């Protein structure tokens, strides 16, 4: 992007203007996410910077909203913080209840989506697969069809099938929503896969299962893991289906946030949001590392 030496003045001016424009767009992308982090430490119940915060007065900051995540919904939040207080938190705190549900639903639906999705991607990436295009279009469609329509359909279906307000119902729905991501990432990894490797293994006497475990799986593992992470994030972030088919017992973190924003928004939401941003930074780093590893394995080196 460096300017060549022969660039005219007009080109130079435009070049720097362009860089400033790009900088502003990056600011637009990232600032809304970062702005909630300092605000979540606000000692006042406001959603904006107080004078004390701008002057970096320590008195303007506190962890009270993080504390509120633990105490909200507890039977006796004012009690002495000993073993029984922590048990009370673990059993009654609303956000922990939501976190437990999100974790159960997220992990179970991710396992489901990853196993089924990887198997299907193996079949879909074979050149002899019949009706490839139509099958692929159907399997990707849960990602494209608006969630409100999927949720409406599931509401009717689950009410009739007795799956409404149950964990298996929500896990199945979330697995279905995560599957397109697994298929897309795994087929993308398989598109660079050298099929002569598996043929070589077979000709040396390996059974299909051995070929899969010893040759194919290690090579596509980065793709499988990033697909699984996508599926997990999809489930961890999903609120419309949960809104339609879950009861309080299956309340997840996004649903609790949704309720919080609709009923009375308090900075506790910002504290939760900050924690979620930190989690997504961790996930993003994992994906980036996996991508580099995959490129290294396949012999593409980043410049």
């Amino acid at each position, binding site marked *: 992007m460096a300017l060549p030496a022969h660039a005219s003045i007009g080109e130079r001016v435009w070049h720097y203007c362009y860089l400033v424009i790009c900088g502003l767009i990056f600011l637009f992308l990232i600032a809304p996410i970062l702005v909630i982090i300092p*605000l979540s430490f606000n000692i006042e119940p*406001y959603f904006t910077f107080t004078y004390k915060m701008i002057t970096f007065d320590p008195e303007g900051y506190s962890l009270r909203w993080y504390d509120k995540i633990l105490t909200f919904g507890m039977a006796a939040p004012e009690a002495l913080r000993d073993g029984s207080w922590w048990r009370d938190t673990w059993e009654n705190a609303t956000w922990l209840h939501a976190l437990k549900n999100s974790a159960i639903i997220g992990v179970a639906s991710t396992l489901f989506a990853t196993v089924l999705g990887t198997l*299907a991607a193996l079949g879909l990436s074979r050149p002899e697969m019949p009706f490839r295009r139509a099958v692929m279009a159907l399997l990707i469609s849960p990602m494209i069809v608006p969630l409100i329509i*999927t949720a409406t359909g599931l509401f009717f279906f689950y009410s009739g099938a007795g799956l409404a307000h149950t964990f298996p119902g929500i896990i199945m729905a979330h697995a279905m929503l995560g599957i397109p991501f697994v298929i897309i990432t795994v087929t993308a990894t398989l598109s660079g896969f050298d099929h002569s490797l598996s043929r070589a293994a077979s000709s040396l006497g390996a059974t299909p299962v051995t070929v899969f475990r010893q040759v194919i799986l290690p090579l596509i593992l980065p793709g499988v893991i990033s697909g699984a992470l996508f599926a997990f994030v999809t489930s961890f972030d999903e609120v419309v289906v949960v809104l339609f088919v879950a009861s309080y017992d299956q309340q997840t973190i996004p649903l609790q946030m949704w309720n919080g*924003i609709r009923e009375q928004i308090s900075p506790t939401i910002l504290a939760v949001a900050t924690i979620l941003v930190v989690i997504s930074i961790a*996930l993003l780093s994992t994906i980036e590392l996996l991508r580099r590893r995959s490129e290294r394995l396949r012999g593409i080196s980043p410049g």
Partner: protein
Amino acid sequence: MTAAEIHQPETGAMLTTADGAPLKEALARAMRRARFRAFLLVVPLLIFVLVTFAVPIAQMLYLSIHNPVFSDHMPRLTAYFEAHPDIDVPGEDGFAALALDLAASKKDRSAGRVGTRINYERPGSNSLFKSGARKAAKFKGPPYKEKLLKHRKDWADPHLWNVMKRAAQAHTLGFYAAALDLTYDKKGEITRVAPERRIYVMLFVRTFLLSALIAALCLLLGFPVAYLLANLPLRYSNLLMILVLLPFWTSLLVRTTSWITLLQSQGVLNDLMVATGMVGDDGRIQLMYNQAGTIIAMTHILLPFMILPLYSVMKTIPPSYMRAARSLGATPVTAFMKVYFPQTIPGIGAGCLLVFILAIGYYITPALVGGSTGELISNQIAFHMQSSLNWSLAAALGAILLFGVVLLYWLYDRLIGIDNMKFG
């Protein structure tokens, strides 16, 4: 030896495998087996997606044309309508069927549901049915018409009978008509509803226009950034890519919450504008709970879906083309417009279609920051599902939306191919 001779050796015998089977057949058999094996790997997922996705949506589509509430709970009246299809306001026999059905509905407590069903098309019918059912339960015998008319004159309303006659048909296109702001008038002919009640066509149009605007804004903001990312050395572009991918990976509700904090009238942006003197403290701008809120927040949320396809297309355009154009005497603007830009069109198409498809089905963000003027069609579907409980209308609205999305999805597959969709 010519090619034909290789395939047909002099002996005229066919090529065979070691165990004597004709080679062609053996090959076909092996191909069939390979196809079957590939298909077998996909079958479990196919069944799973059919059951958890295709069947529920099919069920929803069926519900949009099938509403058996009236015919199930008013069987005598339904049978009467079948026997007398042309009647306007019936005599004693029709009222007898109505009164007996009402009495039965009092017993199994379905009068409210039947009343609600009629209420969709004739406001005020809900209370009429509830109180009518209570009265009818006490009738000892005929004359039913006289007794019902003594309860309320409304029972002789030809419009009511018209609506009931249509509701008695479980299979109906009436909900699609309602979803398009159409109704049956008192004579039973299709007309548009009163102007103040026309909301759905306006909402479909608004959803379409706002989605197009959001896609255009995303293109406007995404194009320069994608160009920068594609032309920087990988070391820098990988770092800047994180700024694009982090929003992509951050929870939708977190991003919506951030926009609420930023856009509120007591929020960060307004405070900033007041502090810098751009607006007075009493002139705070309403940025949220209106269309502006929906547009700003959704553009931010969908921007990565524009940048990523643009970037992957721009990455494949060799920089030497632009240099060649310049060296042949083109100005920077001409070189860009005539040489570079046309090559990015596949990326623009992919990004715009993707953003548009995702935008027209958005629900969460408009519901939280859109208010009533920034509301999209999905919000009305949710309203009918959760508050008004007119599920058939919700299903009909959903079906129309689904039709639009499937059309765009088909277009996307034809133009770009779903195989080419990538993340990160």
